[in-house]
């Protein structure tokens, strides 16, 4: 049902290692523990969003509400913490909101068969509107211990944002690879009719996928607000597209049915390293935008070329899948 494109994973590792070698030559500030930690910290939130996006793309849909949902649930969690002073309660409240919005997305997409692009696009403004309505457009400051979600260190050394990212990486990996739910996601993304014929409850699985995506987005949002030490709803904007970029660089097929958690992680790291080295070198802001755009295209190109050479069979297989649709 799903040929694992292992070569693809290695080609990404090669691209990343290659980039890191070049970066080390370009700047002697690059290969230091602090800098590498910085990169991991900087990519952690977008990576968690990308895991969510990856799961949704694997099953052939898209979730554009992730960024604003993160902003909303993170900020509401701050509100909850200020009101109650309880971190677990705030965290659960954030998760609840994430699941709620995810469930709404999933309901319309899976059961009413609306295009996910439109539903989740519309949900962006619903999310943003509801938090702004509550706060009156103001940000939430003085969030006290809530900042621990983004600024604390595990065992005094490992930044909590990285811990969250790794945790979500492991969860995503297990879900996609070792659970029925994960395998069904690939099956639905690969060929919905065939999956349906094979007895998979497509609607239910898709609904669940959106709920999971909402939960992930909520986690990302709470980590984000912790790191920012404030509840700033607008900061979530744009994360959904960054997440798509990371996912696609990571080898997730836009037509669904293929993609891995590690691929997404590597895709995210590639962007993170790129942003980092350009700032270390003091590259002009406008130049950065151009370089970043082209490097992303080249990274995907290099990846596709490697994949073409090694796994011709799989490509033909997926092409015939397309035809069946």
């Amino acid at each position, binding site marked *: 049902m799903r040929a694992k494109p292992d070569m693809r994973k290695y080609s990404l590792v090669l691209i990343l290692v290659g980039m890191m070698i070049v970066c080390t030559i370009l*700047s002697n*500030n690059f290969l*230091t523990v*602090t*800098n590498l930690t*910085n990169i991991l*910290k*900087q990519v952690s939130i977008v990576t968690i969003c990308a895991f969510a996006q990856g799961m949704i793309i694997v099953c052939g849909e898209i979730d554009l509400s992730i960024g604003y949902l993160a902003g909303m649930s993170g900020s509401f969690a701050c509100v909850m913490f*200020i009101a109650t002073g309880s971190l677990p309660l705030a965290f659960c409240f954030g998760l609840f909101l994430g699941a709620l919005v995810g469930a709404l997305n999933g309901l319309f997409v899976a059961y*009413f068969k609306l295009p996910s692009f439109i539903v989740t696009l519309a949900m962006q403004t619903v999310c*943003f509107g509801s938090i*702004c*309505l509550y706060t*009156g*457009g*103001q*940000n*939430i*400051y*003085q969030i006290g211990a809530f900042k621990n979600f983004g*600024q604390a260190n595990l065992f005094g050394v490992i930044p909590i944002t990285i811990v969250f990212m790794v945790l979500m990486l492991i969860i995503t990996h297990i879900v996609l690879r070792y659970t029925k739910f994960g395998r069904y996601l690939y099956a639905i993304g690969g060929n919905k009719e065939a999956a349906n014929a094979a007895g998979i409850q497509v609607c239910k699985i898709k609904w669940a996928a959106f709920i999971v995506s909402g939960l992930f987005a909520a986690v990302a949002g709470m980590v*984000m607000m912790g*790191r*920012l*030490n*404030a509840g*700033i*709803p*607008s*900061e979530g904007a744009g994360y959904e597209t960054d997440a798509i970029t990371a996912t696609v660089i990571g080898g997730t097929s836009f037509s669904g049915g293929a993609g891995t958690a590690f691929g997404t992680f590597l895709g995210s790291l590639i962007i993170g390293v790129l*942003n*980092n080295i350009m*700032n*270390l070198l*003091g590259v002009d*802001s*406008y130049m950065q935008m151009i370089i970043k755009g082209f490097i992303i295209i080249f990274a995907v190109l290099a990846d596709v070329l490697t994949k073409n050479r090694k796994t011709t069979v799989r490509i033909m297989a997926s092409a015939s899948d397309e035809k069946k649709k």
Partner: protein
Amino acid sequence: MKTKKVLAMLMAVTMVIGLTAGCRSSDNSTTGTQSSAESSSDGNTFKVAFLPTDMSATFASWLAAELTTVFETYDDMELTVIDSKNELETQLSSLETCVSQGYDYIILLPLEPAAEDDIVAGYIADGTPMMMINLDDFGVDEAASVIANPYDLGTVVAEYAKTLLPDDANVVVLLGPSGNTDSIERRRAYEEVLFADSGMTVLDEQLGDWEKSKGMELMENWLQVYGDSIDAVISMNDAMAIGAYEAAKEAGVGDDMLFFGVDGLADAAVSIAAGEMTATALQDAQVMAEEGARICHEVLTGENTEGFEKVQIPVTLITEENVQEFVTRYTENGMLSK
């Protein structure tokens, strides 16, 4: 069949929710266009529209709240707020709607003053008096204007920074979005007041897009390259400056550097009070709203025969000396909880 029924039910429910939500938001009269659409200028009440840039932006929503409060003290004027959602296109069509709906006065918080000048001039010529508030490039002679000069905002902080920084200081600079008038003017003030006649080195300057997370990320990277040779972070707004402080604090050098911002809103007040940020400058929305309402009223009642007035409100430097006053004030007006 069944799905259709469910769908119809769902749509009905959403509509009802939408309706009630709409009513609620016009109750606190910060958003919504419906509140005063029908009563026209034939009665005793003048209809005034306020078109802010983006009601989810801190300053714009604060200004809208202050304007709403001030307008409540006038019996003969009624204010409607129509959000432009940070899109020029939306603002222009709202403007069109307001004119065709017969509003007596329009207060515009423009997104791109230079791009809107011609249209504003046209409407004024057709008989709807208008005001540019907070941002104005003075492209329309007949438009009223109430602004805090962005250049002045940069100047007061730059002058204060000059007293604190050594002549050979190393600084990093955080800019707003590319092409943003506020950012460009504030940066120009720094150039002329602080950098031009001193030996200061700008180690690097980058676009932080007004975002706290960008300020934080850029600072993390700068600390890698320049370490504690950075003496100060010069930011064109507060959010980025505070983001940079968070990064520096985590690297353990937060107290060795100075952080300068502009905006002077609640986040900066809290930060300065906590000894984190060094200074910021405030464009006071309350003063702006009071002046705006006064001019609007004078024009509508005919007290002002010219049909417009241009004022610049003073900018206020906020440092640790006077920050407590602002913390109190922001707590009282609800911008700070607790």
